[in-house]
C-alpha cells in the first residue's frame, strides 16, 4: 500500500471540515452531517485497512513522510505519520467512535434554531477528528503537538457551540486556557529534550527512543525526572487529571455528542496517549512513574467522590470520566501501559455509550439535564435504557463486560508493582494505589447506580412526556453497546485461559511491556472479589436511591460538612481562583495602575518636567533679566578662561 495514503486519515476529515466551513450558513443539517459522517466513515475505512496492514507481520510499520516541516538549529520538525498496531488501533477507535457519534449528531442536532450553525458544528467535529487522528498517528512530537492543540481548539469551538449563552462560551475558554497551561508543560518538555540531547536532538519518536536507549545518560542529572513531570503536567491538562481537571465538568456545556466524542472517548485520552507514546521517557525515572500513578489514583478517587453529588446528568458522567482516566494514569504509572491502553479503549466505548444514551435522554427531555426531574425513563425509552444499562455494567466492571477486564488489569498491575519501580523504595505505595483504585471502582458503582436509579428507574418526576428517540439516535447506541459489552475480548486475561491477550501480544511490546506473567488464580480472585464488592455497593445504592430511598438526605445526615464540601465540587475552582486567578488579576491591575500609569507613563512627563525645571531655574536665576548679572557671567567666563591661560 502506498504509505502516503496514511495522510488521508487526518486528511479526509480535514477536507470535510474545509468543505463545511466554506459552505457556511447555507449548508443544511442533512448535507453537513452527511459530509462529516462520510468523511469520518472513509477515515474509518482507511484506519481499518491500515490496522490490517500493520498486523500483517510482526514489526510492520507504515511510515508516511512528507518531508521536513520546518527546521532551525537542532529543531527539525517533520511531517511524518507512522502506523503500527498501537497507533492504528487507536486510529480505528477514534474514527469508529467518531463516525458513530457523528451519525448520532445528525439526529441529535435537530433544533431549528441551530440550523445556521450546522456547518460550523459538523466542520468543527470533522476538524476535531482530523486533529485527533493527526495526534494519534504523528511520528514527530511537533506534529503530534499540532494535533494536540488542534483538538484543544476544536474543543473550545464546540463547548461554546451555543455561544449565545455566555456561560457556554466561558466554559469553552476555560477548557482552552487550562489546556494551554498543560501545553506549556509539553512545550517545555520538548525544549528540555532538545536541549539535553544536544547535537543528537530529535523529536521523532522512534529516533528519540533509539537515542535514549543508546545513551540514557543524556537525560541524566534529574533531567529525566523534569521531562517526565513536565509531560505528566501536560497530560493532566488534556486528560483532566489533578490538578488541571476543573475544566472538564464545565465543558459539559457543549452539545452532548461533543461531550461524548471529545470529553469522554477521545480528546481526554490524549494526555494518556502522550504518556503511552513516550513511555520510554517516563521509564527513565521511577519517581515520574510514581507521580503518574499517584496522580491517577488520587484523581480516580477524588473524582469518584465528586461524582456522587451533582444533579446534572452530564456532570456526573464528566466526573466519572475523570475518575476513569485516573485509573488509566494509575495503570501507566505502575508500568501496565498495555492495561492502561486497554482501559482507554474500553472506556472510550462505554463512556461514549453512556454519553450518547444520556444525549438520547436529554434530546427526549428537551435538554432538561437535572436528574431530579427524571426517573422511570427505562419504561418510556427502552432502547436507550438498555443501552445505558450495558454501559453501566461495563463501567462498574460487571464480570464479562469490557470494563471488568480492563479495570481489573490495571488494578492488579498496581498491586503487583514494585515500590522501587515507582521511586518509593520502602514505602508500600503500590498497595495504597491499589486500594485507592479499588475504592474508586466501588465509588463508580455507587454513583453510576445513583444515576441509573434516578434516571431510568423509579417514577418519572418531570413534566414533559418523553418518548423513545428515533432510529438515528438509537442505532449508534446499539453499536456502542455491543462494543462496550464485547470490548473485553481485545485483551482477555490469562486466567480465563487464553495464552495472551491480543493487545498484550501485539501492542504490548510497542509500549515496552513484556507479555504479562501468568498470575492465574490470584488475579481472578481479586477481580471477582472486586466485582462482588461492587455488587454489594449497588445493593446499598438501591437502598439509598431506590424507590422511596432518601439517598441524598441520608448521606448529608451522615457527614454533613463533607457532603456539602463535595457537593460544592470540593471548592477547587474557588481555590484556584483564590490562589492563582485572582492574585494574577490583582497583580495585573496593580501593575496597570501602580507601575504603568504611575510609573512608566510618567517617565516622559517626568523627563519633561525635569527639563522644564531646568529651564525655569535658568530663567529665575541665570537669566532673570538683570543686565549687570549678564555682564557678571561674561566677566566670570573671561576670568576662568584667562586663568586657564595663565596657569599653563
Amino acid at each position, binding site marked *: 500500500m502506498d504509505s502516503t495514503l496514511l495522510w488521508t486519515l487526518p486528511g479526509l476529515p480535514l477536507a470535510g471540515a474545509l468543505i463545511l466551513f466554506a459552505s457556511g450558513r447555507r449548508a443544511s443539517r442533512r448535507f453537513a452531517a452527511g459530509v462529516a459522517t462520510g468523511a469520518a466513515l472513509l477515515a474509518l475505512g482507511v484506519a481499518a485497512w491500515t490496522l490490517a496492514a500493520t498486523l500483517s507481520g510482526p514489526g510492520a510499520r507504515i511510515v508516511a513522510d512528507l518531508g521536513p516541516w520546518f527546521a*532551525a538549529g537542532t529543531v527539525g520538525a517533520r511531517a511524518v505519520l507512522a502506523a503500527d498496531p498501537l497507533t492504528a488501533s487507536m486510529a480505528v477507535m477514534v474514527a469508529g467512535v467518531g463516525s458513530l457519534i457523528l451519525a448520532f449528531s445528525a439526529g441529535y442536532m435537530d433544533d431549528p434554531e441551530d440550523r445556521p450553525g450546522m456547518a460550523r458544528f459538523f466542520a468543527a467535529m470533522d476538524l476535531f477528528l482530523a486533529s485527533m487522528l493527526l495526534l494519534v498517528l504523528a511520528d514527530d512530537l511537533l506534529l503530534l503537538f499540532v494535533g494536540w492543540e488542534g483538538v484543544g481548539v476544536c474543543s473550545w469551538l464546540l463547548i461554546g457551540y451555543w455561544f449565545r449563552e455566555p456561560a457556554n462560551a466561558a466554559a469553552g475558554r476555560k477548557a482552552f486556557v487550562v489546556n494551554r497551561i498543560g501545553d506549556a508543560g509539553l512545550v517545555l518538555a520538548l525544549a528540555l529534550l*532538545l536541549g539535553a540531547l544536544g547535537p543528537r536532538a530529535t523529536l521523532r519518536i522512534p529516533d528519540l527512543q533509539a537515542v535514549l536507549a543508546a545513551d540514557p545518560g543524556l537525560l541524566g542529572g534529574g533531567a529525566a525526572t523534569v521531562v517526565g513531570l513536565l509531560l505528566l503536567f501536560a497530560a493532566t491538562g488534556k486528560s483532566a487529571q489533578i490538578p488541571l481537571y476543573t475544566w472538564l465538568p464545565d465543558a459539559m456545556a457543549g452539545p452532548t455528542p461533543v461531550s461524548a466524542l471529545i470529553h469522554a472517548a477521545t480528546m481526554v485520552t490524549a494526555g494518556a496517549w502522550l504518556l503511552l507514546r513516550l513511555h520510554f521517557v517516563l521509564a527513565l525515572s521511577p519517581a515520574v512513574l510514581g507521580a503518574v500513578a499517584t496522580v491517577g489514583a488520587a484523581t480516580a478517587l477524588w473524582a469518584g467522590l465528586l461524582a456522587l453529588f451533582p444533579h446534572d446528568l452530564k456532570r456526573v458522567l464528566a466526573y466519572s470520566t475523570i475518575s476513569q482516566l485516573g485509573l488509566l494514569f494509575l495503570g501507566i504509572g505502575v508500568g501496565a501501559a498495555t492495561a492502561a491502553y486497554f482501559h482507554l479503549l474500553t472506556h472510550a466505548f462505554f463512556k461514549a455509550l453512556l454519553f450518547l444514551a444520556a444525549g438520547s435522554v436529554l434530546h427526549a427531555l428537551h435538554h432538561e439535564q437535572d436528574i431530579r426531574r427524571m426517573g422511570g425513563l427505562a419504561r418510556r425509552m427502552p432502547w436507550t435504557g438498555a443501552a445505558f444499562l450495558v454501559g453501566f455494567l461495563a463501567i462498574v466492571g460487571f464480570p464479562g463486560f469490557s470494563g471488568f477486564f480492563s479495570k481489573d488489569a490495571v488494578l492488579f498491575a498496581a498491586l503487583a508493582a514494585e515500590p522501587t519501580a515507582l521511586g518509593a523504595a520502602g514505602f508500600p505505595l503500590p498497595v495504597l494505589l491499589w486500594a485507592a483504585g479499588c475504592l474508586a471502582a466501588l465509588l463508580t458503582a455507587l454513583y453510576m447506580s445513583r444515576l441509573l436509579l434516578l434516571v431510568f428507574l423509579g417514577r418519572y418526576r418531570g413534566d414533559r412526556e418523553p418518548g423513545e428517540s428515533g432510529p438515528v439516535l438509537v442505532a449508534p447506541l446499539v453499536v456502542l453497546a455491543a462494543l462496550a459489552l464485547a470490548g473485553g475480548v481485545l485483551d482477555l486475561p490469562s486466567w480465563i485461559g487464553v495464552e495472551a491477550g491480543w493487545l498484550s501480544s501485539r501492542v504490548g511490546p510497542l509500549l515496552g511491556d513484556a507479555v504479562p506473567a501468568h498470575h492465574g488464580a490470584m488475579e481472578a480472585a481479586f477481580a471477582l472479589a472486586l466485582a462482588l464488592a461492587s455488587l454489594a455497593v449497588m445493593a446499598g445504592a438501591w437502598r439509598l436511591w431506590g424507590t422511596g430511598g432518601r439517598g441524598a438526605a441520608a448521606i448529608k445526615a451522615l457527614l454533613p460538612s463533607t457532603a456539602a464540601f463535595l457537593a460544592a465540587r470540593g471548592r477547587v475552582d474557588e481555590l484556584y481562583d483564590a490562589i492563582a486567578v485572582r492574585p494574577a488579576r490583582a497583580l495585573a491591575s496593580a501593575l496597570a495602575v501602580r507601575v*504603568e500609569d504611575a510609573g512608566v507613563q510618567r517617565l516622559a512627563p517626568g523627563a519633561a518636567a525635569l527639563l522644564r525645571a531646568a529651564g525655569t531655574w535658568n530663567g529665575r536665576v541665570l537669566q532673570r533679566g538683570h543686565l549687570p548679572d549678564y555682564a557678571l557671567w561674561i566677566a566670570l567666563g573671561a576670568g576662568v578662561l584667562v586663568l586657564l591661560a595663565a596657569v599653563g
Partner: protein
Amino acid sequence: MPILTVLIVLPALGAALVAIVPRRLARPTALAASLATLGVAVAVWARFDPASAEPFPLHEGPWPWIPDLGVAWALGLDGVGLVFVLLTAVVVPAALAARSAPGRAPAALLLLSESAVLGCFTALDLFLFYAFFEAMLLPVLVVLAGFGGAGRIRAAVRLLLYTLAGSLPLLAAAVATWVHHRAAAGAPSALLADLLSTPVPAAWAPWLFAAFALAFAVKSAVVPLHGWLPDAYAEAPVGAVVVLSALLAKAGIYGFLRWALPLFPEAAVRAGPVLLALGSLGVLYGGLLAWVQRDLRRVVAWASVSHLGLCVVGLGAGTREALAGSAWQAAVHGLYTGALFLLVGVLEARTGRRGVDDFGGLAATAPRFAFLLGLAVLAAIAVPGLAGFPGEFLLVAGTWRVAPAAAVAAVLGAVLGAAYLLRVVERVCFGRPGADAPADLAPGEALPVAVLGLLLVGLGVFAGPFLDRVTPATDRVAAALEAARAGEGP
C-alpha cells in the same frame, strides 16, 4: 536592474503620484502603488537564491552618498531582510485598504513610510540604515498627529521623543563605530562588511552595544521602554497603527539581528542576560496588562508588547533556534497584529466604539468577522499549524538551553495570551448579539484581512521554505555570538 532600489523608490513615487492625482483617484493610486511594490517584492523573492553562499544573495551598490564620510547607498538582502521586506510589502496594501483616515495625505504618507521601512530592511550602510530607521517613523507620526484621536498630539510627541531618546544614542554609537573604523582601516566607510572587519575595542563595545540596543529596544517597545506604545496605538488611525505595530516595531528586532549583534558580539553575549530578563519581563508584563484592558486596541497593543518581548528573549538567548525564532516571530507578529488592528478598526468605523464589552454575539451577526478574528487570535497564541507556532517553539527551545527561566516566562506568556485574547473573542463574538450589532465585513474590508489570514495559515503549514531562507542569516549571527562566547570562556 537594481531591483532593491526600485523596491524602495516605487512607494515613494507612488506617494508623489497620490499627492497630485485627483482626489477620488488617490486611494486607488495608493493601493496600486503598494500592490506594485508587492509585485516587486515577489520578484525579489524569486530572484533570491537561498543556496547562495554569499551573506547577502541580493545586493546593490555601494554608490556614494556622502563621499566625505564614505557613506554610500548600499543595499542588500539576506533571509532575515527578505521576510521583513515581504511582510512590509504585504502589510502596507492591507493598511491602505483600511478606510481609516480621510483624504489623500494619510495614504501618501503611509507609502512614504513604506519606502523608508523597505530601505531600513535593506540598507547595508550604517548611516543609510539610520536615516531610514528614523525616517520611517516621521510619516506615520504625521498621520498620527494630523488624523488621530483626541489624544493624538500627546501620543505623537511622546512617540517621537521616545524614539529619539533611543535613536540619538544610536547615532552617536554609529558615529563612534565609524570613527573607529576610519582610524583602524584608514578610509571612511560605514558599510556593514567594512565595519565587521574592524571589531571595536572591548572597552567601547559594551557602550556602543548599549546605545544600539537602546534604540532598537525603544522601537520594539521593550519593557520598560514601551511608554510610547499604548497611547500611540490607541490614538492613531488604523492604517497608521497597522504600519506602526506590524512594521516599525519590527525594525528594532531587525536592527538587533542585522547590526547590534553582529557588530558587537562579545558585548551582546555579555548583555544576553539583560535582554533575556527584559524580554521575559515584557512577555509577562504585556500579557498581564493586556488581560485587564477594556479597550480592544489596548488589548492588542499590550499583546504586542508581550509578543515582542518574546522576540527579545530570543535575541538574548542568541542560539540558532532562538534567533531564527525571533526573526520568524517578529515577521509573523506583523501579520496577525495587522489583522487584529484592521478588524478592530472595522468595529470602530462601524460603531465608534471599541471597548471589549461594547459588543457581543458577532459570531451570529458577523460570521466573517468572527472567523477572521478567531483565526488571527489563534495564530497570535501560537496554535500549531498556524504561523505563530514555529517562531514560538523555536524561541522556547532555543532559550531553554541558555536560560530555562526565560523559557518558562515565554510559555507563561503564551498561556496568558490565550487568556486575554480568547477573552476578547468571547466578549466580542460570543454571547447574545446586541440590538445595534455592527454589520459583517464587506468584501472590500474582508479581503485584506483574509489575505493576512491566508498567509497565517500558509506560513504555518509551509513554514519550511521561508524558515530555510531565514536560518542561514540567523545562523551566521548565532555563530558570531557562539565564537564570542567561546572567546570569553578562557
